C-alpha cells in the first residue's frame, strides 16, 4: 500500500515581509514623560487618562526589572519607538483602510476569515487599530467591538468603571509600561444574556523596525452573556528587537462565559511580555486557551481571579521553544470565593536549544472553602541542548481544598517512534504526529479552521527536528 505523504509547504515567509510605510505620526525612539504626554495629546484624551498614564510612567521608572523569568538584560528601552500611527482613523469598512495596510492584512487572510467564520474582526497595525467590524445583527443586540481608544470615547461609563481594575498600573513593571503608553487593542462589551455565536477576532501586526506595540484590551461580558475572542499576532523579522507589551483585562460578570484564545507567532526578535488577567464573578466561566510558538522571549501567565461563588477557571497553555527562543509561560488561578474550581493544563515542547518554562500559581485564599483545583504540566524535550524548567507554586490556605498537581518531563519515546515507523512513517513524520498528539489538548479547543492552521504551524516548527 502506498501512503500518500502530505508535504508541508513552509509559508512562514509570507508573514515575514514588511511594508515601507510613511507613518502619519511617530514618537522619537526612547521613553520620557514627554513621550507619554505626546501620545496622550495625539489621541486627544480626557485629562484623567493622561494622569493615569503619568502615574504609571512614574511607577515604571521606579520599578526594578524582574529578576526572574527570561533574560531581559539586552532589552534596551531607549531604542524602542513607543508610538507609530499608520492611518488616520479606525475604519468600519474594509474598503476605507489605506491600500498598503489593506494589502498586508489581505496577505495574512484576515478579511477572508471574517467572511467565513467570524462574528467580527479587528486589526491593529503597529500602534493603532486600523479596522474593526462586527456583524450587524450582533451590533443591533448591543455587542460592542471596537478599538480601545474609541471605546474610551464612545462608552466612557463602561470603560472607566472597568479599565485598570483587573490589572492595576502598579501590578508589575510591564503593566506599568503598558499603562503609560498604551495604544489600540480591542474594547468588547457583550450585554446581558447575549450569546455571541461565532468568535470575534483581533489581529495584531508589528510592521516597523524597533516598534513597541502596547495594545490594551478590555473585555466586559455582562451577566449570562457569552463570548469567544481570538487573537493572532505576527511580525516581520527585523534583525533588531521589537517589544510587545500588552495588557488584557477580562471581566466575566455573574453567569457569563468567556473564552480567550491566543495564537502567538511573533517573529524571533520580539520580546513578548504580556499581562493577561480575568475576573470571574459568581457562576462565571473564564477560559484562556493560549499558544506561544513565536517571539525570542515570552513571559506570559494568563491569570484568573475567581471572585464569585462557583466561578470556574480553565487555562490551557502550550508553548513551543525552538532555536534562540525562551517561552516562559504558565498560568495563574487565584481562588477568592467558595466552591470555585479551576483546571490548568500546561504543555511545552523544546528543541534546537530552545528553553521552555512552565511557571504557574494556584492560590486558595482564606474563606475560599470547597475549592477543587487541578494542575497538569508536561514537557517534551526533543534534543540535547534544549531545556525544560517547571516552577509550580501551590499555596493553599483552606482546609477543605482539594488540589492535585502532576507533571512529567521526557522525550518522545523510542517505542512510539518505532511503532509509527513500522506503520510506514518516516522518523520525522512520526515525531510530528507524537508532538501534535501531545499538544492536542490545545488544538481540540480551537475552531476547526484554527486547529488545522495550528497543526500546520507545529509541523513547520518540527521540520527537520530530527537530524
Amino acid at each position, binding site marked *: 500500500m502506498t501512503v500518500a505523504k502530505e508535504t508541508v509547504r513552509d509559508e512562514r515567509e509570507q508573514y515575514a515581509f514588511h511594508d515601507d510605510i510613511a507613518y502619519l505620526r511617530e514618537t522619537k525612539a526612547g521613553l520620557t514623560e514627554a513621550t507619554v504626554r505626546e501620545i496622550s495629546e495625539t489621541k486627544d484624551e480626557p485629562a484623567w487618562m493622561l494622569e493615569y498614564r503619568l502615574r504609571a510612567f512614574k511607577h515604571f521608572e521606579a520599578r526594578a526589572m524582574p*529578576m*526572574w523569568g527570561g533574560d531581559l538584560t539586552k532589552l534596551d528601552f531607549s531604542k524602542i519607538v513607543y508610538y507609530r500611527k499608520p492611518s488616520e482613523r479606525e475604519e468600519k469598512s474594509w474598503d476605507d483602510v489605506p491600500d498598503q495596510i489593506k494589502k498586508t492584512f489581505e496577505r495574512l487572510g484576515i478579511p477572508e476569515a471574517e467572511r467565513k467564520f467570524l462574528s467580527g474582526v479587528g486589526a491593529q497595525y503597529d500602534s493603532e487599530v486600523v479596522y474593526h467590524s462586527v456583524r450587524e445583527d450582533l451590533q443591533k443586540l448591543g455587542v460592542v467591538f471596537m478599538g480601545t481608544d474609541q471605546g474610551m470615547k464612545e462608552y466612557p461609563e463602561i470603560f472607566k468603571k472597568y479599565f485598570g481594575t483587573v490589572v492595576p498600573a502598579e501590578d508589575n513593571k510591564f503593566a506599568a509600561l503598558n499603562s503609560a503608553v498604551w495604544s489600540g487593542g480591542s474594547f468588547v462589551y457583550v450585554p446581558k444574556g447575549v450569546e455571541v455565536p461565532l468568535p470575534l477576532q483581533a489581529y495584531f501586526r508589528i510592521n516597523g523596525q524597533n516598534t513597541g506595540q502596547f495594545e490594551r484590551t478590555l473585555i466586559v461580558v455582562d451577566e449570562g452573556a457569552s463570548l469567544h475572542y481570538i487573537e493572532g499576532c505576527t511580525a516581520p523579522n527585523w534583525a533588531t528587537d521589537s517589544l510587545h507589551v500588552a495588557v488584557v483585562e477580562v471581566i466575566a460578570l455573574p453567569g457569563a462565559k468567556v473564552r480567550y484564545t491566543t495564537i502567538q507567532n511573533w517573529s524571533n526578535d520580539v520580546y513578548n511580555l504580556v499581562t493577561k488577567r480575568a475576573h470571574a464573578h459568581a457562576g462565571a466561566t473564564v477560559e484562556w486557551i493560549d499558544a506561544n510558538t513565536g517571539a525570542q522571549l515570552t513571559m506570559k501567565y494568563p491569570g484568573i481571579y475567581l471572585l464569585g461563588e462557583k466561578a470556574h477557571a480553565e487555562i490551557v497553555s502550550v508553548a513551543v521553544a525552538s532555536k534562540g527562543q525562551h517561552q516562559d509561560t504558565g498560568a495563574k488561578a487565584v481562588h477568592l470565593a467558595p466552591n470555585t474550581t479551576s483546571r490548568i493544563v500546561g504543555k511545552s515542547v523544546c528543541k534546537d536549544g530552545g528553553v521552555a518554562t512552565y511557571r504557574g500559581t494556584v492560590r486558595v485564599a*482564606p474563606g475560599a472553602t470547597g475549592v477543587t483545583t487541578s494542575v497538569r504540566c508536561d*514537557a517534551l*524535550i*526533543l*534534543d*540535547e*541542548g*534544549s*531545556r*525544560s*524548567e*517547571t*516552577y*509550580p*507554586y*501551590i*499555596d*493553599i*490556605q*483552606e*482546609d*477543605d*481544598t*482539594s*488540589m*492535585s*498537581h*502532576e*507533571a*512529567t*518531563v*521526557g*522525550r518522545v519515546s523510542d517505542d512510539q517512534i518505532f511503532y509509527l515507523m513500522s506503520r510506514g512513517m518516516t522518523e520525522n513524520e512520526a515525531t510530528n504526529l507524537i508532538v501534535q498528539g501531545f499538544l492536542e489538548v490545545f488544538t481540540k479547543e480551537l475552531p476547526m479552521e484554527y486547529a488545522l492552521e495550528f497543526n500546520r504551524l507545529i509541523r513547520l516548527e518540527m521540520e527537520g527536528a530530527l537530524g
Partner: protein
Amino acid sequence: MTRRALADLPLEWATTDTITTLSPGGAGLPERTKALAAFHALPTESNLLFTGYVDLRAAEVERAAPAQLPQEVRALDASALPTGAAAIVEISSAGAAAFLGAEAVAAGLRINALSPDAPLAGAAEDRTAALIAALWNIGVSISLGAGRISAPIVIRVNAPEAGSSLLARIAVELGVGTHVSIVEEIGGSAAAAGVATSLLATSSEVTLGARATLSLSSIQDLPENRAYVTVRRHTFGEGAQLQLAVAQVGARLVRGRIDHLLEGDGSGVRQVEVVFGAGDQIHDLTTYSLHSGQKTVGDLLAKGVFAGSARGYIKGVTTIPRSGRGTNSYLGEFGMLLSKTARSVAIPSLWIDQPDCERAAHGSSVGPIDPAQIFYLRSRGLTDAEARRTIVMGFLEPVVAALPLDAEAERLREVLAAKLDSALAKQPATLAS
C-alpha cells in the same frame, strides 16, 4: 511581636570577634572568615524559586551567641548506649561525647572531633551553610573505612537553653562498600511555647564512597521556643545508596535545606520527609537534587500535616544537567490541612537539560481528610476522633515505617500521636462534621 526575616536579623554575634574566639590558636580562622563574609553577602534564599516565604519570624536570637566549647569528643559510659544501637554520640552545649559498642569497635568505626579547618561545602552559596561554617562551635567526624555495621549509630543533639546558640557540624564519611545506619534524635528540654530565643543550627555532611549504603533517619522534636536551621549535604560515589527519613515535628520555626549530589553513576536516594506543624510553627524546607551522574535515581516524598495557624513551605529543586543520562527522578509533595488558619505551600520544581531520562516527574496534592474514609472507619465502629486520628497517622506512616529501630519508630508514633491529639483537641469546631 516583631516579625522579621532571617536576612534582617542582626545576629549581633556574627562578627570577626566571635569567630576569633571560636578558633583557638587561629586554627580554621581563614575558613571561618570566608564563610562569615559569605553569610553577610548572601541573600536568605539563594535558589530561583523567588518565594517570599523564607522569613523566619518570631526568632529573637540576636544576642544568643555561641559559646566556645571543648574541641574533643569525651567518652561516655557504656550505660549510655541505647538497646540495639552500635554507638552513641551526644552533642549539647556541654560539648560532644560518644560511646562505641563492640560491633562498632570491631568494624573500625571512628568518632572524633572535626578538624577545625574542615571546609563546609556549599558555604559559599547558601546563607545557612555559611552561618554554620563561620560560627560552628562543635563538630564531630564519624567515619568508617570498610565493612558493615548492622546496628544503628544513634546521634543525640540537645538544643541549647534559652539565650544561647549551638551550631553543630556532623561529618560522616563512608568508604567503598560500607553499610551504616544512623538515627538522629534532635530534641531538648521542654519549655513553654513562644518566641524562639535559642538557635540550634546543624549541618550533616555525608560523603558516600562507591557502593556505600546509608540509612539515615532524623527525628526533630525540639521544644517550641527554639529556632532550628539545618543543612544536609550528601555526596554520592558510584552506586552509592541513601535512604533518608526525616521527621520535623518541633521548634517554633524550622528552615531546612537538603542537597543530594548524585555524582556517581548508578547512585540513588530515597527520601521520605514528614512535617507536622501546629500552633504558630513555621516550616520552610527545600530539597535540591542534582543528577549529574548517569542512571541515578531520586525518589523524594514529602508529607505535611498542618494544624492551628501553622505554615509549611515545602520546596524541591530537581536538576538534571546534560551529563545525567538515563535518570529516574520523582518529587512528591503532599499536604493535609487540619484547620482553616493553617497554610500549605508546595513548589516542586524541575530544571532539565537532558532529554534522555527514564522518568522526570513530580506531583503534589493538598486536601482535607476524606469524608468517605471517615465514614468507612465510623461504620467499622470508630468514633469520629479515632477515625481522624487513624487517617492522619496513616498519612504519616510511610516515614515512621522507614526508621530502622523499632523503638525509634514507636517513639515517633507517640510524638506524632500526642501532637495530633493536642491539635485536634484545640479545634473541635473545625473538625466536627
